[in-house]
């Protein structure tokens, strides 16, 4: 393997994704907007994470679990036939090949180890697509913890496979019947539950959202995607770094982990949101679920329900660091429609023999559209994170195709 290129300071202060900045801030975003009853619990997670992250023993234990249990490192796959058809050189970072089938396991193994270190006996989680819930149930089983997963009733219907997997793994799945009955309300319910359970439970947040330290901590646990990909690109590409780095954005964890590996390079970072859940592209300043960030809101400041074919992107906000990267101009946030995503999923299946998660298919749909529209110059090198595999989405796709 060739060496990774040297780290340049090409981006403004705070946009290098190394942080955290004071008081959990990413520019004007972030912070710890929690009820007083959760303030101490957040402080404990913060303190424990800082200690653990500075402890080589903790790091080694995590690296080992990621290797022997989750199957890391994941390959970088050149998408040969897609590339030829699109006129760009597309590489896929294969998070779909991790154990449990998505990048969510990277974060969960980190947080589960942290929970054990903190003496907690149970993990609480919210889930949309069910991938974070399955990862949490898996890590809990592996480390001898209990797991309680909150999931919107609507998502329970459309992600039945993952609900079964969680229950088989011994987790309790609690249906959430309020509001949009999707990820937003599952997150609210998990937070309410945590207020009464801080003594023995760790809230394992599934994305780069929530109160400080979660956005920073989850990005650090997902950084492995970007760091591996950077080394792999260095070995694969003449230029060392790709021209574009693309990932889908729900709360933004697979994108944050991917971007973190390239924030200090010349690569252009593109986050792809669902048309109906475009917090970064179309949200306005607000506070929800513990952090100050960009959220879809109506004229009165009420949070608007998101709508996406991909349960994992069906969230009306975005993590605070993405909001900051957007303001800095370091990353760009674009949207694609349900139809474009579904088409892209089928196209990848037929061209490369890979059935992607509908979330990941959003990233691909943007690449396809941008290559067609000339936004991606011919011959560009594109790294795209394929955040998960599509088994969970077959019933949704069956209705569409």
């Amino acid at each position, binding site marked *: 393997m060739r060496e990774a290129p040297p780290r340049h300071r090409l981006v403004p202060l705070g946009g290098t994704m190394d942080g955290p900045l004071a008081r959990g801030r990413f520019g004007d975003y972030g912070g710890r907007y929690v009820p007083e009853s959760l303030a101490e619990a957040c402080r404990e997670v913060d303190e424990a994470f800082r200690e653990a992250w500075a402890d080589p023993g903790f790091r080694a234990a995590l690296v080992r679990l990621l290797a022997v249990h989750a199957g890391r490192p994941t390959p970088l796959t050149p998408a040969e036939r897609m590339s030829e058809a699109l006129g760009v050189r597309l590489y896929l970072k294969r998070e779909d090949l991790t154990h449990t089938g998505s990048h969510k396991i990277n974060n969960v193994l980190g947080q589960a180890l942290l929970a054990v270190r903190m003496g907690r006996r149970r993990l609480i989680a919210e889930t949309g697509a069910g991938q974070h819930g399955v990862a949490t149930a898996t890590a809990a089983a592996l480390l001898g913890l209990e797991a309680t997963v909150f999931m919107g009733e609507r998502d329970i219907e459309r992600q039945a496979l993952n609900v079964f997997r969680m229950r088989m793994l011994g987790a309790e799945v609690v249906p959430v019947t309020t509001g949009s009955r999707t990820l937003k309300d599952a997150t609210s319910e998990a937070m309410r539950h945590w207020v009464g359970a801080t003594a023995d439970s760790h809230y394992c947040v599934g994305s780069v959202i929530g109160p400080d330290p979660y956005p920073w901590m989850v990005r650090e646990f997902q950084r492995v995607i970007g760091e591996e990909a950077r080394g792999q690109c260095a070995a694969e590409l003449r230029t060392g770094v790709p021209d574009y780095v693309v990932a889908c954005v729900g709360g933004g964890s697979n994108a944050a982990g991917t971007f973190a590996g390239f924030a200090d390079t010349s690569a252009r970072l593109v986050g792809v949101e669902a048309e109906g859940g475009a917090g970064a592209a179309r949200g306005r300043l607000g*506070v929800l679920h513990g952090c100050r960030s960009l959220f879809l809101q109506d004229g009165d*400041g009420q949070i608007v329900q998101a709508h996406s074919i991909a349960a994992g992107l069906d969230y009306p906000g975005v993590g605070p660091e993405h909001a900051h990267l957007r303001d800095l101009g370091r990353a760009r946030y674009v949207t694609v429609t349900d139809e474009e995503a579904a088409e892209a999923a089928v196209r990848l299946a037929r061209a490369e023999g890979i059935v992607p998660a509908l979330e990941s298919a959003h990233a691909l749909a943007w690449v396809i559209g941008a290559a067609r529209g000339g936004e991606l110059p011919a011959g560009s090198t594109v790294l795209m994170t394929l955040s998960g595999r599509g088994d969970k989405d077959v019933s949704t796709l069956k209705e569409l195709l």
Partner: protein
Amino acid sequence: MTDATVTAGAVEGHLRARRDTGRGLLMPYVTGGITPGWTDYLRAFADAGADAIEVGLPFSDPTLDGVTIQQASDIALARGASPRRILADLSRLPDLGVPLVVSTYYNLVLHDGPEVFCAALRQAGVGGLIVPDLPVHEAEELTGAAEAAGVEPALLASPATPEPRLAEIARRSRGFVYAVSLMGTTGERAALADSAAELTERIRRVTDRPVLLGFGISTPDQAREARRHADGVVVGAAVMRRVLDGAGPDDLRAFLTSLRRALDQECDRPR
């Protein structure tokens, strides 16, 4: 109400004066916009001997509320309630003789910005503000704007709050200190939590500001017990459950009168 009727410190002054007569303080809550004639509940509260009235501005995602207030919020929003409409309703009310305290989530405060939001409160005759998802370490942005507008932001303290932080909360709180009785969300409970007594005693060791105990207080007996430790009580879900069940202002007047009586009986509390 005109601007002149609300001066900085008015809520705290009012509560201190009443407390100092030995009276147990009662602050009932209602979700703004819950029914077409919802401000009639406020008159009933005042008639029943409330010492302050809390008006909730419903938010789409009330993450610290249990099912009752979640449901009330949803119903009010479905009826078209908004901060602007609720404050307009309040500004048309005659002086009830007790301070009005608004409670809401920080997203609604940020929407127009804390300055504009606090100015609108004051314009509507609201003297106090509770924002349950704005802890003391993030409160500066609001407290400055609130002070400028003459609105008193009360901070919450929880059983999990450690000692030095508790003192800071008491110091930076205005109007009163809101003691959260238990580790949980709002909602009726069968008994007053054990954590309530300990927390209120801890708060009173660091401040002489009025201390109101809230979350879960549902019955006259619980109010009486709470009064042994705190200067008074906040009653939210127990009111809103009755409203959701169809209780009108007269029914609520009767319920609050029973709480008032319980508080009045409990005047032998050690201070």
